[in-house]
Structure formats: C-alpha cells, structure tokens
C-alpha cells in the first residue's frame, strides 16, 4: 500500500527527516495562502497514486502566489491517468546542487533489510526496492541488530556523499530506519534526497509502501486504505478480509479462485483465450472464513462484468461448501451474468451435483469454463 506524497511527508516530519517548507492543500485558495506564506517560488504537486506524474502535468512550478492559484485550480479541475486531483502539495522551490536516491527495503534475495543509494534519476524507486541491482551501492542490515552508523558511513563513502554532510546524512538514515520498522513499511525511499545550493540536506519527495499484513498492529494502515484502493469493490473486499483487484476494464470477465497462484493462472488462461479480465478475486485456500458468497455478490452487481469464471481446488474448505455459498449469492443477486465453474480436489462431485440446474454453469474443465466465458462475452460485444 503506497502512500501519497503528503502522507509520506507527514511521516517524515514526525520522524525528523527534513522536507521542504510546504503544506498540503485541498483548494486553489488554500494554495494561494500557502504560497504567500512561503514567500518564494513554489512547486505544486498533484496528490495521486501515479508513477511519473511529473511527465503527465502533475508537477508544476509557480513563481508567485497568484500563479500558484491559477496552476492549482487548473490541476484540480482535471484528471491525471484517470485520477481526480483532490489535493496538491505546495512546497518551496529549491536550488539543487546534488541529488541522491536512498531506499530502505527488505531484499528478497537475502531476506534481510538493505539500505540502497543511487544517483540515476531515471531509475524507478520501485525497481530499486524490489531487487537490488549489482550497480547499486547498498549495505545489508541484520534485522535483529538494526541499521548502524558504520554501515551508513560505508554507504556514504562509496557513493561519494560529501563528508562534511555525513553526520546529517547519518541521522536521516537512522530516522528512516526507525520509521521503516515502526510503521512496518515494505520500503521507505527518499526520492530524491537533495543537497541544496546552501548545503541543506532535504528529502524533496519520498515514497513509503506499507505492509498490509501488519494491519493487526498498525491500525493506521486501515485509514490509508481509502486513498490507496482504487475502486469501491476493492475497498469493500479489504474491509471484509479477502483479496480483490479491480483493473477497471469494461465488458470483462471476472476470475474468482482460491489461492493467489491459481487465481493468476486462471486470469492468464482467460486473457490468452481472448477474454478481457477486470476483476480478480482470491477467496483464499486456508482461510478460516470462506468469502465466496460475498465475493460473488460483489461481482454480480458490477455492471462492467459480463461473465465470471470460478476455479476452485477443494481442500480445507471443500468444493461442496463453496458451491453452497456461491449458490446463496446467486439466488440473492438482483443482477445475473453467466457464471462458469470448474471444481477440482476435495468435494468436487458433491459441488457439481449441488449446482446442477441451479443457473450456475458447471464445466468439465477449466479450459471449458474459460472458453465458454470468452465465447459469452464475444457474443454480447459482437
């Protein structure tokens, strides 16, 4: 769950990581006031979950408070990559001498945290956070010991970070570590950390991705879900405790399966058979509560969905139980689209006979279910 810039900057401020003088605003009038307060040129940045928003008109400079008002009112009237701009961050514009990208993440290769520093502005933070490049300068951190000063020194030396600013840099990195561990972040990035003409060291922007698994001890994560989850469907599934992705494609097929891998494989199958997938639901294979009925209810009322493929491998929750739940959702639904089901594993026979003549279509194989669904949508579109 990636936070928006202004949320990141709030956390940075709380942890003593220096950020530009600035504030978040919800109206052009507020922007004007903030720009007046800052009293010099400002940068106005759209608060949207879009990578590379700068290239899409989401970051603009204003030389005066009046210009700031105009620019922000334009920005907030439009959409970027489909996202409405409800908020903008207004920051002092700074004259930059050097820039560095600093990422604290957990390295999937070692399974330990790593602090990474690089200077290539073209590289995506997300790429750095997910796989350490051999060209990156990085230090591996013992998760039981935590980041130590000597490691930061080694990193800074290798990167040629100005020795005169080492102690400022060290404190920033130690604060990043506190933030990283205390909020259960998947990564924290300073993107970039700049050295200004006046030798101030400032995180011009930052990125934080939170770990959804830590929700049980980080209740504030739930507050951020509204901003992060794109659709109503996703938000409802999040609250109920199952996994739902909505890609927003029209005239599409939804895939419902148990287990992440099986769900992904089902999606691949549909797309490669010529279908469009918009909604992906994993009801889980070893969950205490099976959510198949709730999931199907959400799918059936979504107007953009024209068919559903259900692919279940029965294990602790048997196919039979899932069939019952699907049936109850089906019977309660106001809107119905064809649902093609493939069962395997425990309870397959029982499930198939339960759904016979129910309106839900039981298929003999996943291939059969997928091909039927694709044919169905083709028919409706065609």
């Amino acid at each position, binding site marked *: 769950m990636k936070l928006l810039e202004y949320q990141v900057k709030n956390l940075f401020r709380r942890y003593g990581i220096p950020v530009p003088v600035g504030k978040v605003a919800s109206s052009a009038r507020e922007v004007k006031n903030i720009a007046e307060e800052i009293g010099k040129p400002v940068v106005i940045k759209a608060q949207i979950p879009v990578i590379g928003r700068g290239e899409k008109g989401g970051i603009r400079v204003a030389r005066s408070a009046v210009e700031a008002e105009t620019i922000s009112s334009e920005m907030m009237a439009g959409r970027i990559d489909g996202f409405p701009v409800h908020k903008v961050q207004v920051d002092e514009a700074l004259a930059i001498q050097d820039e560095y990208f600093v990422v604290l993440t*957990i390295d999937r290769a070692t*399974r330990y945290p790593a602090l990474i520093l690089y200077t290539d502005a073209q590289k995506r933070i997300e790429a750095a956070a997910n796989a350490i490049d051999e060209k990156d300068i990085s230090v591996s951190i013992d*998760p039981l010991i935590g980041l130590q000063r000597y490691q930061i020194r080694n990193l800074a030396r290798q990167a040629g970070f100005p020795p005169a600013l080492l102690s400022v840099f060290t404190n920033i990195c130690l604060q990043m570590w506190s933030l990283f561990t205390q909020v*259960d972040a998947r990564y924290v990035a300073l993107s970039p950390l700049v050295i200004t003409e006046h030798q101030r060291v400032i995180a011009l922007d930052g990125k934080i991705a939170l770990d959804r698994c*830590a929700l049980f001890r980080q209740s504030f994560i739930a507050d951020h879900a509204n901003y992060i989850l794109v659709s109503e469907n996703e938000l409802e599934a999040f609250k109920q405790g199952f996994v739902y992705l909505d890609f927003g494609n029209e005239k599409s097929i939804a895939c419902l399966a148990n287990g992440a891998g*099986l769900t992904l494989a089902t999606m*691949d199958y549909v797309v*490669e058979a010529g279908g469009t997938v918009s909604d992906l639901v994993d009801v889980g294979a070893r969950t205490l509560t099976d959510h198949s009925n709730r999931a199907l209810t959400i799918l059936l009322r979504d107007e953009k969905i024209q068919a559903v493929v259900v692919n279940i491998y029965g294990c602790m929750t048997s196919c039979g139980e899932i069939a019952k739940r699907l049936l109850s959702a089906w019977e309660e639904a106001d809107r119905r689209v064809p649902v093609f089901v493939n069962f395997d594993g425990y309870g397959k026979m029982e499930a198939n006979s339960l759904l016979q003549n129910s309106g839900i279509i039981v298929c003999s194989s996943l291939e059969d279910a997928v091909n039927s669904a694709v044919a169905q949508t083709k028919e409706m579109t065609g």
Partner: protein
Amino acid sequence: MSILINREMDIIVQGITGRAGEYYARLMYEFGMNIVAGVSPTADGTWVMDGKVPVFDSVETALEIFPTAKASIVFVPAPQALDALYEAADAGSFSLVVCVTKGIPIHDVSKVCRTFDARGTRFIGPNSPGIFNPGSALLGVYPADCAIPGDVGVVSRSGTLSYAVLETLKNAGIGVSSCIGIGGDTLQGTTVADALSLLDADVYTKKIVLIGGVGGQEEERAASQVMFSMSTPVVAYFAGRQFPKGRTFGLSGAFIDGGIGDVARKETVFQQMGVRTVRQLRDLPRVLESYS
C-alpha cells in the same frame, strides 16, 4: 522416499487447536505421519484428534515428553506467528520447520529467517503448503490423492496451483518424487534456488518442474543456478503473465513494481539460460516426457 521428510519422523504441530491446524494434522496423521504432539498456549493438557494426540502449552514441554521430535509445522495465526517461530527456533531440536501461516508481516519474516539462518535449521515458508513425497511422507496441507509417486520433483511458490499441477501430472500418468511448496509471500525461508538444489541432490528425482509466479527475481536468480550447477533438467511455468504492472496482489509477493517481477522477463531469462518454459499448464506433461 525422497527429500527432507519420511514416515518415521516425529512431528510437532504448533497451533494444533486452530481450525486449520487440527484439520491438516488429522490429514497428516491419517496419511501415516507420526504427529506426536500439538502445541497451543490455551489448550494445555487437552487431547485432540479423538484423544490420539496430546496438546502442550509450549514447545518446551512437548519436547520434554517427545524429545525425538525433529520437525515442526506451524499453523499459528499471523499476529502470533513470530512468537511461535522464535519458539521453534529456540527449542534447538528441530532440523525442519514448515510455516503454513500466511500474511505474516514482512519484518517478522525477515527476523525469523535471520534466526533460523543462524541456527542452521531448514525453514520452509511462510505461506507454504509444505512438503509432499507422494506415497511416502507428507508434512503440509497437500491433498494426499492429488499425486502419484514417481521421479518428477516439483518446486512451487503457490498452494492450490501446485495441487492443480500435481493433478495434471497424475492424470497424464506422471508420478512425483517430492513437491516443495516454498510459499507465496514476498520472502521465503527456503528460496527457489535452495529448493532446486535439494531436488537436484535427490537420487529419486530425475526431472524438475518449477512453478513460479509474477513478482520478485527469485526465479531469475535460480535460472543461472539451473544452468551452471545442476544436472537435473528443469521445466518452468510462471503464473501471472497477464498481471498488470504496478498492482499488488493481496498479501502475496505477486506484484510487478518498477518492471521487476514480469513473467515475460522471467521466461526470457530462463530461455536464455537454456531452461524450457511452458506457457500453458496443459503442455507440461508433454514437455516433461520429451526429457528422458
């Protein structure tokens, strides 16, 4: 036969009184595994599975009565999993710990991996379906009838998908030596590369199927290992080819972020290393049989 487990091994189940814990403990027991004891902090002194398996409030007490236990399988819910895994590591008796629990915070998993690394204990998971040597031994949550014994080793990042793959192989008459489910979360105690090495060293395994997925670079790292240091042929399949960039799939390690984790890229790397990949699972039996 085959790797890591056998039917003689004494096993402890942590979290045995939870719904999943008891359900799968029973399946393993019925399969013929020696489930000697369960652990549940709140059910000390009780018995589960029709009075066949005693429950203790800690691993320590369970090991006092059953000092021969060499493996633990953990079903403890995610908020308590860190404690349970530290407890398993601290016991010092286990050569193998499998964690079935999914959704453990990534910082906890990192710490636990560090602890098991330091102790030299084989840790599989989290979010792992366990290990299954068809016809021989089962430490995990596999449906026992989804596979038949044979000489194909399977390494998988996902649970139900691997059952479906095993069943596909079974339906084609292809038997399996061992299936290792390394777990679908972002971090794994036993990596793809580790699991491939284990199977490569196993005399009962003649071919290997790798079931990977979108996200991470684990498989790419493993590809060069397959090429340069393994003698057993490998066929790879990756789920999530059609998964869009920039999205995260639930709690799993499945996401393409910054271009990392793309299935097409994984396939390219494998092909460059001379490892065969299949785009469709239904092609798997045919490609496997072409090695002989």
